[in-house]
């Protein structure tokens, strides 16, 4: 039940963050969507043995969190929740790939460890960039962007509807499961005897709700078509933003900045 509640709070938290009015928040949602996609493509395109070249890309999430006034801890908390599966799969790399590829003095590092670290960095970068997108844009604007770039309307409507009623149902489910746990004295989960009835009741109630919503829609002239209002405009500022980041990403992709910096440093001494 804790899961239900904490997820719901997380959802509301991100929603709050998306409601701010910083420079980043005011950009066109399409711009932010494309920038994020470009970032993820670039990050994942690095070879699995790449570490140093990935480091400069951390500038992107760090800068956006600063400009978008996003708290670091919230995004990092989410990261901790997500990490286990990826880290679990990644941890096999050091086991299966033991070919030595680098040495730091007496310490020999195998390819597996390098690729494991690379996976971890990629994980951090991709997860934070997705969360940043939603925390600076909000689901409604993202859906407006999806619609504008040609995603079929039923899909966009579906996401909007789903998200709208997610809030209602999460609250309802929370109350139901609290009512259940108040009267059950064993573990935290739902006993198998109540599986069908608890979830089934909720399902029937949900379907009845869908019926009522449909009637409410009909009462206001619904004819099978939902008309979305146009939203957002691409401006010069958006173009500059996108081009800047794209240039930065490509720069990071093709020039190993830390390597260059490090060489300069070592030569300096």
């Amino acid at each position, binding site marked *: 039940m804790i899961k239900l509640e904490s997820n719901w709070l997380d959802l509301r938290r991100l929603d709050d963050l998306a409601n701010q009015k910083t420079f980043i928040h005011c950009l066109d949602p399409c711009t932010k969507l494309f920038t994020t996609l470009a970032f993820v493509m670039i990050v994942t395109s690095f070879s699995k043995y790449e570490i140093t070249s990935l*480091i400069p890309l951390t500038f992107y999430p760090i800068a956006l969190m600063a400009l978008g006034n996003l708290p670091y801890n919230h995004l990092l908390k989410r990261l901790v929740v997500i990490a286990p599966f990826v880290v679990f799969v990644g941890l096999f790399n050091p086991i299966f790939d033991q*070919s030595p590829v680098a040495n730091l003095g007496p310490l020999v590092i195998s390819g597996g460890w390098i690729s494991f670290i690379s996976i971890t960095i990629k994980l951090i970068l991709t997860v934070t960039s997705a969360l940043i997108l939603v925390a600076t844009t909000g689901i409604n604007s993202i859906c407006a962007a999806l619609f504008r770039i040609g995603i079929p309307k039923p899909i966009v409507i579906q996401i909007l509807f789903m998200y709208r009623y*997610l809030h209602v149902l999460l609250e309802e489910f929370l109350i139901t499961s609290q009512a259940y746990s108040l009267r059950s004295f064993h573990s935290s989960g739902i006993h198998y005897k109540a599986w069908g009835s608890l979830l089934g009741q909720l399902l029937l109630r949900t379907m009845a709700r869908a019926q009522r919503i449909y009637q409410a829609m009909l009462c206001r002239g619904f004819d099978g078509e939902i008309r979305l209002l146009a939203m957002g405009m691409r401006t010069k500022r958006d173009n500059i933003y996108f081009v800047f980041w794209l240039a930065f990403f490509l720069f990071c992709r093709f020039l190993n900045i830390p390597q260059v910096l490090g060489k300069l440093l070592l030569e300096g001494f």
Partner: protein
Amino acid sequence: MHMADALISPIVGGAMWATTAGLASYAAKKVQRDIDEQKVPLMGVLGAFVFAAQMINFTIPGTGSSGHLGGGILLAILLGPHAAFLTIASILTVQALFFADGGLLALGCNIFNMGFLPCYIAYPLIYKPLTGSNPSQRRIMFGSIVASVIGLQLGAFGVVLETLFSGISELPFSTFVLLMQPIHFAIGLAEGLITAAVIGFVYQEAPHILKKAVLNQPLGATPIKKVLIVLFVLALFTGGTLSWFASTNPDGLEWSIFATSGEEEVQAADEVHGFFAQLQEKIAFLPDYNFKQPTPSDQPLIAKTESSKEAAWPSVDTGTSVAGISGSFITLVLAYFIAKGLQVAAKR
């Protein structure tokens, strides 16, 4: 079971995105053509239902662990495959955005694994034949258990293949399969039992809902199925072959393909490979992505065909790694201070 961005290559991610996008617009057309406009709110609310229900813990008797609702089969039973597919796609999209479950690039993979496979494979090919046109409660429950298990097995196998073709993880095919399939058999069984319990309840309390759902599904005659199977094979094929070149380190499965495929095919692959190498040099989108010099013991066959570019990693000496590490550190510090500066500037 979410596939994650960190474990896939852009080519696998992109191929699966393209496949999923095609499927989604097909499903959207189907749903739109469906005269039943009542489905608009129903899909939305049921999507929210599955999303929220997935967070409820169900105690598995005798194990002390807990299971969760899967949702794919349940939605397909209630909505039909097309609407169910779109509903799952919307759930996974919101999960990817808000909970970073999976990630944006992996979204295509995830929608395929958890949407396409249960809705368009397990439901029509397992559930429907098992339950028949005039199903009893028992058959419905049995069908939903089996379909859930098989759907999840396929999904888990999808994760294995996508990971493998991406070549980021070193897990050999056999090990990965042996890890994934049994775990997901247990998970699938729990999902199936929960789904069956819900469907059983609905059958008793409001049988008309299930009957209406059965009647309301003009699940296309064979041509659509054929189209879908062709699409499925195509997806596997494109994903597979493209990733072939993306993967720098072929292991178990790819070797077995190598062993079974004739010389000509390798030859053909070579030509394609050459084409890709040229293409990449031209557009320089993913340079050196798949041209890492493999360790000689690892894969002599590939090594021969690789264009022998300068490889960055295996030949790294201490000097370069020290430079790299200190440089990375400086970069991080720099990034931090620039961000701090931006923050101050933004607040003014």
